[in-house]
């Protein structure tokens, strides 16, 4: 009972202490609220705008030869999306220098061969693979020649009084049966747990270091240890503040992501059209995922606390903690990869298991057995890490390292 009261006293004091620290506020509030949505949607919007611009641009293209096929040349000159520039004999070189985006070689006597139903020889496209504008130009050219070929085929069929669909006995069509929220879920399913995991770590990092190594550095560790507070109550109070920071940061991130989703997609919708489908994210699964991530926050907080109590100074703590950041993010990234799915081994992998279960939940499939197991294992890992942190607080060689 006395310990609980002390935990509460320590918790309230440390919370005030942290909330008065500008650096802590930046890591807890500014990062999730501003940086994350900006990163996600800023990058998304930017690439969208750039793509749109590239699409609307007139790409410079060279036509090599083809002087004896004026009909084709005329049609190419009138095409939307490309501008034909005169060939000066170094067309391929200019594609390579990206002076023009693509070149197309029309074989000699192309039109005549088509008319006479002889083999025309091959039309060759020269592109710079990997360059978006080059592939856009090539796409325009490819589309043009495909249509030209279809026209020729159709004309030849009608000339012979054959049905136009002779060469197309059946068609194949794909229809999406997944409801919109599942489409969004699988598109964002890997990413959202990843972001929450990332922010659980970054949110816990600063307070964990400040409340342990920072306290040593500022000389208040000896003050607090000389008070009658039990070491257990002291660690638990500090630990709960770190968990609070971690959860608050993740919560703010989810909130700001939600807002950004609505605004971001309503913006894109005006241009893209398929925004509506993307907007449909099941809010309930978001809440469920968030709750599942609380033990992860507990795990990170304990690990960070144990690592940084060992350090003598804030700087030293940072060098211990940054590898942990990588360790936490790697499994979260692995879970976003397609094909990485939950199995009986991965169920035990810390962080990865949570990320994978979250991914499933985002597309609305709830495997309660797996969810329960993952929740339990993560809580177990968190408890172990906390036990280590508490033990370290009882070691004077750790507290008075000099």
């Amino acid at each position: 009972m006395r310990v609980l009261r002390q935990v509460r006293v320590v918790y309230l004091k440390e919370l005030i202490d942290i909330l008065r620290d500008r650096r802590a506020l930046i890591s807890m509030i500014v990062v999730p609220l501003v940086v994350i949505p900006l990163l996600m949607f800023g990058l998304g919007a930017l690439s969208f705008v750039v793509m749109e611009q590239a699409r609307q641009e007139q790409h410079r293209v060279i036509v090599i030869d083809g002087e004896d096929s004026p009909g084709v040349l005329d049609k190419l000159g009138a095409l939307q999306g490309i501008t034909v520039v005169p060939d000066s004999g170094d067309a391929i070189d200019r594609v390579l220098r990206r002076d023009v985006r693509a070149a197309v070689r029309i074989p000699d006597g192309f039109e005549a061969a088509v008319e006479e139903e002889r083999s025309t020889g091959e039309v060759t496209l020269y592109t710079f693979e990997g360059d978006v504008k080059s592939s856009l130009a090539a796409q325009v050219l490819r589309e043009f020649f495909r249509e030209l070929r279809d026209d020729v085929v159709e004309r030849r069929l009608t000339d012979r009084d054959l049905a136009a669909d002779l060469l197309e006995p059946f068609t194949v069509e794909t229809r999406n049966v997944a409801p919109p929220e599942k489409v969004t879920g699988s598109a964002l399913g890997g990413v959202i747990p990843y972001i929450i995991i990332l922010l659980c770590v970054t949110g816990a990092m600063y307070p964990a270091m400040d409340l342990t190594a920072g306290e040593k550095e500022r000389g208040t560790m000896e003050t607090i240890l000389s008070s009658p507070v039990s070491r257990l109550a002291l660690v638990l109070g500090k630990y709960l503040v770190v968990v609070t920071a971690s959860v608050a940061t993740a919560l703010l991130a989810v909130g700001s992501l939600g807002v950004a989703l609505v605004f971001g997609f309503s913006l894109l919708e005006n241009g893209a059209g398929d925004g509506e489908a993307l907007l449909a994210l099941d809010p309930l699964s978001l809440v469920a995922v968030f709750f599942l991530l609380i033990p992860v926050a507990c795990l990170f907080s304990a690990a960070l606390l144990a690592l940084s109590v060992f350090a003598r100074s804030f700087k030293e703590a940072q060098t211990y903690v940054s590898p942990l950041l990588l360790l936490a993010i790697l499994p979260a990234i692995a879970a976003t990869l397609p094909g990485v799915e939950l199995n009986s081994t991965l169920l035990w992998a810390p962080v990865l298991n949570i990320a994978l279960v979250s991914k499933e939940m985002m597309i609305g499939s709830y495997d309660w057995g797996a969810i329960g197991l993952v929740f339990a294992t993560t809580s177990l890992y968190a408890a172990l890490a906390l036990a280590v942190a508490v033990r370290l607080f009882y070691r004077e060689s750790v507290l008075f390292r000099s």
Partner: protein
Amino acid sequence: MVEVSGISKSFSDRKRGLFHAVDDVSFRCEEGRIYGLLGGNGAGKTTTLRMLATLLKPTRGRASVDGFDVASAPEAVRARVGFLSGGTALYGRLTAREMVEYFGRLHGLRGADLARRADALFENLEARDFQDRRCDNLSTGMKQKVSIARTLIHDPPVMIFDEPTSGLDVLTARAVLGFIRECRERGKTVIFSTHIMREAEKLCDNVGVIHRGRLVDEGSLAELYERHGESDLEEVFVKLVTREEVA
């Protein structure tokens, strides 16, 4: 009442190997008395006092504060001790008042009781004017007053001061010494370490000289003067320390 019998503290350290910071130290201090622990830098004063404040566990020997053993009842000991040292800084982001009240709460005080005690302390230490300022923004002297208020909030029977005047200007140092004297007048047991002989001469009832972790001599000032044929504590101290160096 503080009783120390044969406490030792060893650290193992990569550079020095096993290192005896405090070696078989014994002394006692009654209520209403001031015991001064004299020694140079690294003599073992701080380690001894840290063991009394239960921050460190003795490797060997026993020490008790008001009848409570430092090793087996550390929390009871801490509840009866006010500990002030160069290493006990203030929480810079708390106000002076919050700092003192935080420690009051950890001592189990609350509500009107806590407010009354804090009021009295700030009044007494003439610290009312800056009680709502953040500790980071206080001068060294103000900080020392807040630290004193922090050690006194639970009205402990035993006070432990580790070099309480180091880094303070003359006036503030005087005020701190006056305050230590006041503790004695109120019947508290005071243990006080310093390397400034004049402070010890002015304040202490009993003095122990510690050198390289060992208590080389102790007694009242008069006893020490007589034993070493000197009338000045500094001379006594130098004699004791150089004798040890030769031996």
